């Protein structure tokens, strides 16, 4: 996925996790993967640096899933022992630590990454070592490594449903606004192809450098173009500046509605609820998603990490992917990566976001797309969903209009 502004701050948590890491490292150093009744699993996220706070929440969700699985007897009757490493918001470090987890710690699987850059850095390491990585964040698609499972959304489970929704609402004139790097540019290429095939008009396409904070000109452009909707792929801090300046110019969710794909519950607070109320977002899960699994998940997460913490889409996907791997290993009756891979296809899990099914061919999972509206309490309320899980299609092969994109 993209860079996002770090979430809830908690140096205490980081300290605790470092402490845990030390304890685990000492306690587990003499064991191999499956001896002595335990299985080591690697957690590789940025626990320091600019990405830390987003990724700390994701790591927390994975630890929650591991402790729940252990409480229910573990995997293949063995307890899971997490080995936590810090990617330090630095992509080469991710590759280095991945190698360390695989060859030194001999973990059975690694759950890790957030940015597409970190995933791309780790990909060759996992392919070379024939080891497994589970990656929990929505991303730009057009990738399908045999050794990575992508448990966040690919474009046809987030961006395309968002466009379907806009079309169904008669919003045919779209303005594209994004940060200037690979994710927004790839996404917008797909959006333009979709628009051309569906009779939508793209009134404009604008990019601003990552971290840009001046949106006066963009706001003027938007006003002059008067689109039905702004499709927003801005990232991180820029969202704060954009929405503040949009509101200051007198444009509201009524007069200049936007659809964002990078603003989840964690980000809403940093942008300021006042600036975002009524605007739309597209994800596969919200804290408010209404089912028994989610109620239990939100309760367990808050009980473990504090009532002020929120859950959101990547946090949920991180939690789910541990369960998916556990189910696959149970089915394979082994934690050997090749056997787990062979067993992965068709694994179904009743997740907080609803039923998800692992696709054995492209290593993504089916997910229900959800459009949400940001409420004055900072939470996101679902206003539309795809009704059923959407099969992942990272290369958009099943869409005629997408020919020539990949």
């Amino acid at each position, binding site marked *: 996925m993209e860079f996002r502004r770090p979430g809830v701050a908690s140096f205490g948590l980081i300290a605790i996790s470092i402490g845990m890491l030390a304890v685990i490292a000492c306690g587990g150093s003499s064991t191999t993967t499956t001896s002595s009744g335990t299985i080591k699993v690697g957690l590789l996220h940025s626990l320091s640096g*600019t990405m830390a*706070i987003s990724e700390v929440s994701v790591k927390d969700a994975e630890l929650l899933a591991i402790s729940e699985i252990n409480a229910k007897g573990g995997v293949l009757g063995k307890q899971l022992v997490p080995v936590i490493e810090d990617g330090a918001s630095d992509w080469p470090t991710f590759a280095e630590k991945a190698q360390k987890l695989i060859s030194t710690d001999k973990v059975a699987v690694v759950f890790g990454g957030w940015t597409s850059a970190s995933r791309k850095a780790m990909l060759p390491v996992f392919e070379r070592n024939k080891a497994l990585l589970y990656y929990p964040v929505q991303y730009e698609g057009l990738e399908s490594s045999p050794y990575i499972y992508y448990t966040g959304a690919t474009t046809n489970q987030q961006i395309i449903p968002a466009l379907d929704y806009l079309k169904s609402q008669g919003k045919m004139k779209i303005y594209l606004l994004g940060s*200037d790097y690979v994710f927004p540019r790839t996404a917008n290429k797909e959006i333009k192809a979709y628009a051309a095939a569906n009779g939508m008009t793209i009134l404009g396409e604008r990019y601003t450098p990552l971290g840009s*904070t001046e949106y006066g*000109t963009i*706001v003027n452009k938007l006003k002059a173009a008067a689109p039905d909707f702004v499709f927003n792929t801005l990232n991180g801090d820029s969202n704060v500046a954009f929405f503040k300046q949009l509101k200051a110019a007198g444009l509201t969710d009524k007069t200049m509605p936007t659809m964002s794909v990078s603003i989840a519950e964690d980000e809403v607070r940093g942008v300021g609820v006042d600036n975002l109320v009524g605007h739309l977002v597209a994800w596969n899960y919200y804290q408010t998603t209404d089912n028994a699994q989610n109620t239990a998940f939100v309760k367990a997460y808050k009980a473990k990490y504090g009532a002020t913490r929120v859950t959101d889409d990547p946090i949920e996907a991180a939690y789910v992917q541990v369960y998916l791997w556990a189910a696959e290993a149970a089915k394979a009756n082994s934690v050997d990566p090749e056997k787990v891979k062979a067993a992965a296809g068709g694994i179904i899990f009743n997740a907080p976001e609803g039923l998800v099914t692992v696709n054995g061919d492209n290593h993504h999972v089916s997910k229900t797309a959800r459009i949400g509206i940001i409420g004055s309490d900072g939470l996101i309320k679902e206003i539309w969903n795809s009704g059923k899980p959407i099969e992942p299609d990272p290369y958009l092969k099943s869409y005629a209009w997408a020919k020539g994109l990949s």
Partner: protein
Amino acid sequence: MEIWVSQLFTGISLASILLLVALGLTFTFGQMNVVNMAHGEFIMAGAYTAFVVQGVLGAQLLSISIPVALVLAFVVAGAIGLLMERTILRRLYSRPLDTLVVTWGVSLILQQLARMIFGAQNVEVKAPSWLSGGLALHGVTFPYSRLFILAVVVVAIAAIWFLMNRVPYGRQMRAVVQHRQLAATSGIRTHSVDATTFFVGSGLAGMAGVALTLLGPIGPTLGTNYLVDAFLVVVVGGLGQLPGAVIAALALGLLNATLEFNTNASLARVLVFVAIVAFLQFRPQGLIALRTRALR
């Protein structure tokens, strides 16, 4: 027609923001020749002051929080600047390039400090109701937040002009810049003047931080977004030259707005840099030049 007026206003507003972040630097860099890489963090300190002030005053007093924060931020950022000047920089006045490295280190420390105190996530500063929305005239909306920043800049410039030209202490500051030894022999306590200059420069950065909370994100790295722009304005305007900084900010703001309107944000930025490099080929001393310690 409306769009051109809007765009002209955007350019002027951008200029006012550039000028605001650069004002403090005309003192610390322009007057004192300290390559102050921590300038952005003084801005950040000002922004967090606004956040703290809003927390302390609460919802009832939200309407006065921004003016109160402007005053407090001047003191807070000024005090941090003063501390840095007294403890570190005064030892480095004869080594301007070393100040670059040292102040960069200070900027990293201040960023991490902010992260430890306030957390890495952005915090929210609410715009009081009188700063929300905008003045609508003939189909053009002038956001109150941008008008407010413009007003702050105008007042700040007037105050600085008054200080430098009508107050004895300001004249002493100019005297020290123009010729330190001569100023010292005339009985001016140059060390104390240095400290004051740095306090005022850092304080202005703090005020800029408060104003910027109305437009942008508030996080530990907020200042780094504005640091380069601030240096550009000072360099193009001429070191330590207030009129030069005003003209430079206006030119850069309008140029950026025009180019961005006709191309895109990334390209506009590149073109502005090209224009600056070309300009400095012809006038390396900036728009307005004066013999200063920096140029001797």
